[in-house]
C-alpha cells in the first residue's frame, strides 16, 4: 500500500549512494578503491587471470609510489592511493559485481576476461553508475548493443584481430587458397572463425573453406580433430584457441606434422611461444590479440615494464599482463588529464570519467586511443608475425603492425556489416 513512499525512499537511497560516491571522490586523502576482477581460479586463471593481475599489480604499485616512467610520474590517481579489491570472475559475475560496488564500495572496476561477463556486467555498471573498464573480453556486442556511459574498453574487440589476421595472410602468404578452422565451441571461437573467414573471403573471394571444427571448450583431446584436418588438407588452418586448449592442440598436432603440412594461424599464439617453442613449426603465424607480449613495440616504457615484470615475477610478461596494465593506465592517464583540465589536484570520479572519453595515452604496448563508440572503445595497433626458431630461441619475423584505421570498423559502423561491405573506408598504407 505504501509503495509510492517506498519508491520515493528508494530513489532517494540511490541518489544518496550516488552522492556518497562523489563525496568520497572529493576527499583526496582516502584511497581509491579499485576492483580488480578476472579469473583467479579455474582453467582461465593460469593463462589469463594471474598474469593479468600481476601486470596490474605492478602498475598499481608504481602508481602509488609515483615510480611510473614519464608522463605518469605524479603519484596516485588524482592524488589518491589505489587500494585494490580482488574479485574472482569465476563465480556469478553480476552478483559479485554488485557486491563489490554496493557492499565493498569500490570506486571503479577494471576487469573481465570473458565476453559473457562483460555483456552481463555492462548494464549493471550503468545502473550503479560505476566507472568500469573492460580490459580483455572480446565481444563486439558490448557497445554495438547500445551506447554506454560508465563502461569503457581499453583493448580492441575480437573481430579486429581476425580482420588483421586475414590481411596478414593476404600480405605474407598469397599462395593461400584454401582454409580450415578449428575453434572452441563457444562465443569467442565461433565469432573469431566467422570474422576471419568472412574477412579473408572479402579480400580474396576465391578462397575456399575446407573444414570448420568446433571442439568443446576445454576438451583437451584433439586426436580426432587433427585427423579430420589432415584428411581434408587446406593451405592454412585458423585457430583462436587460447591457454591450455591451444597448448594441447600444438602438442598433439606437432608429432603429426599438422602445422608443417598446413600453415597454422594462431590468433592468440603469443602465450605459447616460450613454453612450446620446440613444438611450433617455423612459418606458423602468431598473434597476440593486439600489440602486447612478445610483439610489444620497442619503447622505453616497454623496456621498463618488461624489466620490472621479470624482476617482480621472474618471467616474461605475456600479453594478458600488458592488457590489464593498459587498462589501469587508462585510469591514471584520465586522472592526470582531468587534474590538468580542472586545475584541481584531486579530480573526482565523474571528472575522471569525463576525461576518459576519447582519451589517447601511452602504454607499454604502444598508443591506445579510445576513439570508437563515442570515446568508450579503444582502438590500438595490432601486430602479427611469423614464427621462426633461431638457434633454439623463438622469434617472430616479418612482423606487420596494422594501424587502427586499417583493421577497425570506423566510428558508427557495426563490425560485421563493415566486413561484409568489404571494409569501406579502411586506410591501409
Amino acid at each position: 500500500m505504501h509503495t509510492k513512499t517506498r519508491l520515493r525512499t528508494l530513489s532517494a537511497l540511490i541518489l544518496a549512494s550516488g552522492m556518497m560516491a562523489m563525496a568520497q571522490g572529493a576527499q583526496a586523502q582516502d584511497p581509491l578503491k579499485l576492483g580488480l576482477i578476472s579469473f583467479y581460479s579455474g582453467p582461465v586463471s593460469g593463462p589469463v587471470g594471474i598474469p593479468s593481475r600481476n601486470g596490474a599489480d605492478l602498475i598499481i604499485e608504481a602508481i602509488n609510489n609515483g615510480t611510473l616512467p614519464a608522463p605518469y610520474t605524479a603519484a596516485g590517481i588524482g592524488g589518491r592511493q589505489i587500494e585494490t579489491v580482488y574479485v574472482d570472475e569465476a563465480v556469478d559475475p553480476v552478483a559479485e559485481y554488485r557486491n563489490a560496488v554496493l557492499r565493498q564500495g569500490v570506486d571503479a572496476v577494471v576487469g573481465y576476461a570473458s565476453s559473457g561477463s562483460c555483456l552481463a556486467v555492462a548494464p549493471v555498471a550503468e545502473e550503479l553508475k560505476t566507472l568500469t573498464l573492460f580490459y580483455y573480453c572480446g565481444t563486439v556486442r558490448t557497445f554495438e548493443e547500445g551506447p554506454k556511459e560508465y563502461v569503457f574498453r581499453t583493448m580492441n574487440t575480437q573481430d579486429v584481430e581476425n580482420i588483421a589476421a586475414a590481411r596478414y595472410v593476404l600480405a605474407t602468404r598469397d599462395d593461400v587458397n584454401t582454409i580450415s578452422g578449428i575453434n572452441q565451441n563457444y562465443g569467442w571461437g565461433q565469432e573469431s572463425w566467422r570474422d576471419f573467414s568472412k574477412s579473408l573471403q572479402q579480400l580474396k573471394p576465391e578462397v575456399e573453406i575446407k573444414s570448420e571444427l568446433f571442439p568443446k571448450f576445454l576438451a583437451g583431446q584433439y586426436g580426432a580433430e587433427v585427423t579430420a584436418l589432415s584428411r581434408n588438407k587446406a593451405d592454412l588452418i585458423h585457430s583462436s584457441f587460447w591457454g591450455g586448449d591451444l597448448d594441447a592442440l600444438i602438442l598433439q598436432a606437432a608429432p603429426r606434422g599438422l602445422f608443417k603440412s598446413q600453415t597454422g594461424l594462431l590468433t592468440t599464439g603469443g602465450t605459447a611461444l616460450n613454453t612450446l617453442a620446440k613444438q611450433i613449426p617455423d612459418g606458423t603465424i602468431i598473434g597476440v590479440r593486439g600489440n602486447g607480449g612478445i610483439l610489444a613495440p620497442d619503447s622505453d616504457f616497454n623496456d621498463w615494464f618488461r624489466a620490472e615484470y621479470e624482476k617482480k615475477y621472474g618471467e616474461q610478461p605475456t600479453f594478458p599482463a600488458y592488457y590489464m596494465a593498459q587498462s589501469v593506465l587508462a585510469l591514471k592517464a584520465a586522472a592526470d588529464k582531468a587534474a590538468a583540465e580542472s586545475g584541481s589536484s584531486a579530480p573526482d570520479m565523474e571528472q575522471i570519467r569525463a576525461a576518459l572519453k576519447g582519451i589517447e595515452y601511452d602504454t607499454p604496448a604502444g598508443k591506445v586511443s579510445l576513439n570508437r563508440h563515442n570515446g568508450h572503445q579503444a582502438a590500438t595497433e595490432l601486430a602479427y608475425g611469423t614464427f621462426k626458431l633461431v638457434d633454439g630461441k623463438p622469434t617472430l619475423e616479418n612482423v606487420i603492425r596494422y594501424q587502427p584505421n586499417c583493421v577497425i570498423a570506423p566510428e558508427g559502423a557495426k563490425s560485421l556489416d563493415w566486413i561484409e561491405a568489404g571494409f569501406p573506408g579502411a586506410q591501409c598504407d
Partner: protein
Amino acid sequence: MMTFLAIVIDGFIYASWLFIIAAGLSLIYGVMRILNMAHGSFYAIGAYTVASLAGWYWSAGLPPYGGIVLMFVIALAVGALVGFVIERGVLRFLMDRDQIVMVLVTFGLLLMFEDIIKLMWGVQSYYAPEPYSLFGSTDVGDLVFVNYDLAMVGVAALVAFLLWFGLNRTRQGKLLRAVIHDRELAITMGINVRRLFVITFSVGAALGTLAGGLVAPAIAVTPGIGIEIIVLAFAVVVTGGLGSIQGALVGSILIGLARAAAVNLYPELELFVIYGVMALVLIFKPRGLFALASTRKI
C-alpha cells in the same frame, strides 16, 4: 574406407584414455557403491605429479625410457596414496550413508582438491611433452598417428586384462566379486569388507591418476582439468552400467567411436554426441548396458 579407418583409430585412442579413467570409477562404484566425483581430482593430481616430476626428470636429461617407467610409478603411487588417505580419513566414516550422499561428499572433496592443487602447484601450466614424441609416429595411408597414442590402446588393454585377471583369478578378486554381487551376504560370510574397501579405493584412485599421468605429456596441465573430465567419465560408466568393468570398456569404446565419427563426419554434433549416446542407451536400458543385477526380495 580411409574415413572409416581414421574413425576407428581415433575412436580407440580416445576410448582407451576414457577406459582407464572409467575403469577406476566403475570399480569403486561396484565394490563400495560410491560414485566418486573426486575421481576428477585424482586425474588432475596424476597429471600434475607427472608433469612436474617427470618434467623435471627430462629437463635433467636422464635416459628417456627411464622417464616412462618413472611416469607409471609415480602416477600409480600418488594415486594409491591419495586414495588410501581419502578412504581412511573420510569415506570409511560414511559407509552407511545413501549413495547420493556419497556423491555429494565426493563433490565436496572435488571442490576442496581444486584449491589444494592450486595451493600446491599454483595456476601456471605444467608441460612434459618429451614422452609424447619419444616413440615417433606411424603412417596409416596419408595419415600420421603418434605411437604414444597407439601405445595408450595397449596400456588400456593391459589395464583391462589385469582387472579381469585380478577379479576372476585371484582370491582377493573373488572376494571383491562377492562384495560387488551382494554386500550384505558377503559381510555375513565373514569377508573383511573394510579391508577390501581400502584396497579397492586405492586401486581405483591409482587408475584415475594413471590416466591423468599418461595424458599429461599431450596437454598443458592447468587448473580445472579434473572438473572437465568427471562428467565425461560419468557418462561412460553410466552408459556401460555402473559398477561393471566390461560396461566401462564397452561404454568407452562406444563413446570413443561415436565422438570420432562425429568429428570426422558431422563436426557440429561433437558437443552432444557423448550425452546423446548416454541418453539413448539409458532410454532403452535404464540401468546401462551391463547393469549389476538388483532384484529386490520380498
